[in-house]
């Protein structure tokens, strides 16, 4: 502990209150101490506080309060610690270990953002916290977080890569199949990256036990079964489509045949008409001749009625085909509608999430504002007290002078 720190009245107060286990008062002093800091001395003050807490019994409890009450927020804390030496940084991280194990929800919301920090020390620090979290009560199941950690395996800094491997091993002990799936998919994305392959091998070797392999195999088998089912259904669908197409073609052929038949019939009828006209013009009317046209007329009438029947049939079939076509279109539209509905549902969930996040950040802001107001209030009260004292002293002096 520095001499400067030993002389510091706030630090002395913190120590005294810690001895008496007045943790709330300690938190308030620290909040004021850090709140009064300038840009230049904030880091020094933060370091003094951290050093003091690290050494004292109950320091972890106070630190938890500080994080809970947002006096210290994890992202800026890690960023600030990154500017200091590794001894302080790692000692502090170690101080957070039990908190990570027991209350991971204090850290997990920031993890993904911090993994994308520009500062490699911050990336390493958050990975270390994830190692601690994975060693705790709750297992990490968030696929996108595991994916983000997996992305850190390709980090430009070697020490971040090592820490990412360590984190994945720690998470993978609880969730071998999930981690295996994500890291193997990641390797497939970069098939030429040998180092990535080696690291992935290493992680898999570390996390997979005999039971784990069985579990993974079972899951893979289940996935394979699902895949087979899906492909079978796809085949069926394809078959049905082909059948529909066949039927369509058949119908078209039938239409053509019917049209051809209709044309042939018409041609026949026309021929007959021509013959009749020719006979009427060439020969005078005889008994037989008079009888002949009657027959023909009958035949014609019959044929005409046949043609009409066939026309009706054709129209019926046309209607049926149209009906089937419409039904198919309807089905397709229904499927499309379902897909759109699903998409809408997903979007709605996303919107809800965003709204909740916004609400959270609004609440955080409100909390911060409240704290600032409290501080201002305290300062005002202090000022008022001082002013009162000043006026009282003035009055007293005036009285004395009067006397």
């Amino acid at each position, binding site marked *: 502990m*520095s001499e400067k720190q030993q002389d510091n009245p706030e630090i002395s107060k913190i120590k005294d209150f810690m001895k008496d286990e007045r943790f709330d008062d300690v938190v308030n002093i620290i909040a004021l101490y850090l709140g009064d800091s300038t840009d230049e001395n904030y880091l020094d003050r933060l370091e003094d506080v951290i050093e003091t807490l690290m050494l004292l019994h109950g320091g972890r409890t106070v630190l938890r309060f500080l994080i809970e009450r947002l006096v210290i927020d994890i992202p800026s804390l890690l960023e600030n610690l990154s500017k200091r030496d*590794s001894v302080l940084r790692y000692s502090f991280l170690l101080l957070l270990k039990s908190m990570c194990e027991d209350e991971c929800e204090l850290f997990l919301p920031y993890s993904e953002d911090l993994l994308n920090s520009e500062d490699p020390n911050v990336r390493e620090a958050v990975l270390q916290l994830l190692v601690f979290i994975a060693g705790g009560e709750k297992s990490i199941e968030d696929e996108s977080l595991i994916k983000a950690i997996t992305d850190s395996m390709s980090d430009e800094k070697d020490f971040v890569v090592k820490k990412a491997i360590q984190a994945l091993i720690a998470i993978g002990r609880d969730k071998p199949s999930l981690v295996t799936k994500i890291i193997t998919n990641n390797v497939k994305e970069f098939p030429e990256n040998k180092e990535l392959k080696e690291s992935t091998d290493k992680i898999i070797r570390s996390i997979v036990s005999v039971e784990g392999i069985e579990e993974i195999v079972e899951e893979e088998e289940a996935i394979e079964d699902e895949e087979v089912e899906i492909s079978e259904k796809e085949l069926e669908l394809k078959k049905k489509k082909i059948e529909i197409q066949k039927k369509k073609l058949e119908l078209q052929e039938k239409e053509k045949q019917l049209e051809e038949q209709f044309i042939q019939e018409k041609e026949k009828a026309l021929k007959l008409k021509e013959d009749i006209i020719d006979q009427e013009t060439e020969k005078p009317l005889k008994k037989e001749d008079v009888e002949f046209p009657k027959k023909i007329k009958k035949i014609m009438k019959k044929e005409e009625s046949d043609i009409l029947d066939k026309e009706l049939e054709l129209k019926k079939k046309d209607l049926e085909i149209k009906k089937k076509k419409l039904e198919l279109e309807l089905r397709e539209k229904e499927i499309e509608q379902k897909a759109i509905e699903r998409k809408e549902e997903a979007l709605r969930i996303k919107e809800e999430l965003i709204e909740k996040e916004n609400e959270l950040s609004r609440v955080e802001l409100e909390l911060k504002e409240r704290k600032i107001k409290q501080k201002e209030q305290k300062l005002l009260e202090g000022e008022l007290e001082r002013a009162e004292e000043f006026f009282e002293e003035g009055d007293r002096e005036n009285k004395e002078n009067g006397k």
Partner: protein
Amino acid sequence: MPLTPEHIDKFITVESDSKTKAELLELLNERIKKLCFEECERDRILCTLSPLCSKRFLLKLRMLNGLSVEDQPKFCYSVHKNIIQRDFRNKTVIYKPFDTYLYLIDFLDVFFHGDYRKLNKFLSKGDIKAAIEIFEDRIKNRNEEFQYFLTADKNYIIFKFDEKIHIIFLNEKYALCNANRENIPNLEILKALIDLFSNLYFPEIERRLIPNDCVEIKTYIPRDVLNKTSQEPPENDKNKKDQYLWNTFANELDALSQFCKEINLYTDKKGNLKIKLHLDVNNGIRYRDLRLVFNIVFRLYNDFYIIWI
């Protein structure tokens, strides 16, 4: 019974076949390399908070054998430097960095941060005068509290920051920080340390270097004090001088005898009791031992010598 380190130590001492010895030592070397560059640095938290070699002595092993900073495990060395820096600034450290070595430029960076490039340039080129000007400027104009002493042959500069002793080895281009349990390597440093402490705490006491032999420190207890000392052991604590001469002095002479090559006690012509100490480096006197010698000499000087002068 499995193989123990003692067996290996004995084997290296006894074995005459140099090839076998070399093979064994190569095995050890490979193990050290793996330990430092793979196992320990694999996890930076582990390397920072609980290094795999105690107090990072393997850094010292490389440094004392003339290896450069490029041959050191980088992160481990940076933590090592950080720890010395934090200790210098009285901040909490994982272990007290006693008897630790730093490369010259890093030593200057830790203890003389603002001027370290200039100092490194001057000291590397042998321009000690220019370096001393900077030290003087820092003491006189920048209110820095430290003492320094350039050794007689200008091979070393000794610094005293509060109670901590640091020594720059100018030819080797490294520095020993917080000298404590290390042996004092030569008479040049021993004499410089005695001069530095004498100047600060017992300036009138005689001291001289007997070349290639030892450093002599001469003090005395005046005749008047001796005459006033009771002839029988004191029965109470009233007279502290009596108490000291009857009860403590003999023990202190005994303690001194562990670190001195010779102790001469005799009365001079004026009847004063002369105490002559011969200190050498052949018996492995450590920096902390010298501190004990200084404490005894300081007491004799403060309680008897200075009053009578």
